[in-house]
């Protein structure tokens, strides 16, 4: 055999090998997608197999909560091997990058963490999730979760994921000592806020601590201002397809946010939300508006709620609970659908939620939790969740799809830097095209 022919032969083999390797990535391993229906309310023992759960819960409290749920799962489903696929960092951005790559390659995990609400519509539109409305009925979740919440996580007439927890986004955290020393009370309205801020500023204290390094802090602040200006009835309408952002109240909200930022620290863009919370704890700043993961942060720093720091609804947000929620869905073509359904049953169960949430520092999405397991703030929050009006958060994936979140977020981040009201109003109006 001549060298040329050897070469040709080798070439053919190489190409074949590459083609085979490429095909290996395709969903050749897809298993039957039609999961056997599970008519029982209690998850049936699955008897072995595997379960892959994908999340970005790697930090202290959240990882503990996840492990507590895994322990319960192992008790209920002995013999199932749990694969805990986590990707740390970027407030979930890094994890989502890996997840999206896997989904496009046809290699889904059985179930993955996703913010309940509009964020998961992208996966639904791509046909990557199984509807769970029937499952909710079987498990009775539809009776123990607030109707308003269920309404807000319904898309195309179906529910697609099981909320494990609820965080509150519109909370004002304040340094109790500063407020006592200066004879101030936490501001209830926007006007109150500016009165309080002015007297704090006169004393040389930063009235409002705002971060910016994590790229969501000003957008986060602004969603509570939008809620204050629009009220709980009109605020959710801002995220319907074709919403009217030319409403003069948008400009009004931007003017308020501008004034608020003028009362905040000038080094916003170099601080993360946690650094901003730390300023409050250190007594360098008086207030910060952040989700209740700040509560977890304060506790982690050894601070005492009611002594070192207090909580109140964000100014103008009284009686409205802006929620966000972590949830788990069922992958279309999940390798282990039966085990995954048992997992989802646990996620939505009172037992599972009460194991997870006290550790994570969030409240259950169910209204029948064992309140005694939770600390002072969380008990307050559980009560508020059960009684107040519910509206979804923009920044944390509940109210709007990711494409919109990105445009909204960037508009507000630029605003945090140049405080240009005209520009932010224009950018927000422009972003409406990404609402759908």
């Amino acid at each position, binding site marked *: 055999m001549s060298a*040329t022919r050897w070469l040709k032969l080798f070439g053919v083999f190489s190409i074949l090998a*590459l083609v085979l390797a490429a095909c290996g990535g395709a969903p050749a391993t897809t298993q039957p997608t039609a999961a056997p229906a599970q008519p029982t309310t209690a998850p049936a023992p699955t008897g072995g197999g595997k379960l892959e759960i994908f999340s970005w819960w790697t930090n202290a409290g959240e990882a503990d909560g996840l492990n507590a749920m895994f322990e319960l799962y192992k008790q209920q489903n002995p013999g199932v091997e749990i694969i805990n696929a986590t990707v740390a960092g970027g407030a979930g951005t890094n994890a*989502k990058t890996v997840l*999206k790559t896997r989904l496009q390659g046809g290699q889904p995990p059985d179930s993955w963490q996703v913010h309940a609400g509009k964020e998961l519509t992208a996966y639904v539109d791509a046909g990557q999730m199984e509807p769970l409305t029937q499952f909710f009925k079987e498990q009775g979740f539809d009776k123990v979760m607030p109707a308003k919440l269920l309404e807000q996580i319904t898309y195309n007439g179906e529910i697609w994921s099981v909320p494990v927890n609820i965080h509150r986004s519109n909370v004002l955290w304040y340094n109790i000592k500063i407020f006592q020393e200066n004879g101030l009370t936490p501001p209830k309205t926007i006007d109150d806020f500016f009165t309080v801020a002015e007297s704090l500023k006169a004393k040389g204290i930063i009235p409002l601590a705002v971060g910016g*390094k994590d790229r969501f802090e000003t957008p986060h602040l602004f969603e509570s201002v939008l809620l204050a200006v629009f009220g709980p009835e009109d605020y959710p309408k801002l995220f319907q397809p074709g919403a009217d952002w030319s409403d003069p109240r948008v400009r009004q909200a931007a003017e308020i946010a501008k004034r608020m930022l003028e009362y905040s620290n000038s*080094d916003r863009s170099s601080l993360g939300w946690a650094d901003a919370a730390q300023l409050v704890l250190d007594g*360098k700043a008086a207030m910060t508006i952040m989700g209740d993961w700040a509560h977890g942060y304060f506790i982690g720093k050894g601070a005492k709620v009611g002594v070192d720091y207090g909580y109140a609804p964000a100014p103008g947000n009284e009686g409205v609970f802006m929620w966000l929620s972590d949830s788990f869905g069922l992958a279309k073509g999940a390798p282990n659908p039966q085990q995954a359904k048992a997992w989802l049953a646990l996620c939505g169960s009172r037992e599972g939620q009460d194991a997870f949430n006290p550790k994570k520092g969030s409240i259950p999405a169910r209204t029948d939790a064992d309140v005694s397991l939770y600390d002072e703030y969380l008990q307050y929050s559980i009560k508020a969740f059960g009684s107040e009006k519910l509206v979804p958060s923009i920044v944390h994936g509940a109210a709007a799809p990711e494409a919109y979140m990105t445009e909204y977020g960037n508009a507000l981040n630029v605003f945090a*830097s140049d405080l240009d009201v005209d520009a932010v109003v224009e950018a927000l109006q422009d972003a409406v095209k990404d609402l759908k």
Partner: protein
Amino acid sequence: MQQAKTLSAHPARRVRWMNRDRAIALLMIAPSALAIAVFVYGFIGWTAYISMTDWRGLAISTSFVGFDNYLTIFSTGRFQTNIRNLIVFTLFFLASCLVIGLLLAVLIDSRIRFEGFFRSVYIFPMALSFIVTGVVWQWLFAPGNWPNDPTGINLLFKQAGLGFLQAAWTTDTNVVPGWRIEGLRTRIGIPMAMIPVVVAAVWQMSGFVMAMYLAGLRGIPDEIKEAARVDGATEWQVFRNITLPMLQPITLSAVIILGHISLKIFDLIITMTGGAPGNNTEVPGLYMYEITFKANKFAEGAAVAMVMLVVVALLVVPYLIYNRRTEVER
């Protein structure tokens, strides 16, 4: 390249286009050549194709839309700002690295004591990842509540009694001079927050340029300089008319190497500023990451990637052509 040289050096052995040696050589490079063809050029082609589709959302879509995505990204103020930032960063980074690198190389070449020690000190930052550099310099350049309660470098200045040197550093929102041009949705000028980022990048890479120049300096035969001195040239004239011209190939290589790092920069900036304040330090790499993996606009992300590829190609391809020509001349 090497293969071609050896062959032409032995013209007697060049009998047929394919002999045993050549066949084995081709056989050896075939696997990597194929892998590169698929995983580099294949995927570049795929990205180029995707950039002309309407792929939005997680489900792939391949309807052809031509250059729409390019028009979209170039019309956004954000991408225009990115391009401005990239130009500013690259110019400042290249210029500073070359000047400082050359300066250090000349100093070290002047037969100082502990030469090896200094050489290691200057080149050491290169051993770090840009991620580490970004995090450390982010701490240093975080201004704090200056001037009264500063952090990082500002605190150092304050303690050293140089309080007037305090600045907003990475949180400076100014663009100097910040001209507005009709039709452009960004302000033209130097975003001041970019300066600290350039400092960090120069801190990391100037040692590398020093090493390159040092090798170049050591490669200049002493006889030439001696001859010039004998002819009465001053040290400055020797440097200006002999050393610098002979270092020109080094400068070119340095520009290419630093330039392609600079045009693709991502890790340093995402850890140091994340693109803040506003989009004042954001570069196309960050933008691509965000609109692709956060906003699910895969086609627009691919278009940004192609723009980055073209920009780098504008730098590298002429160099490759030039290199080929000079090799042929030799």
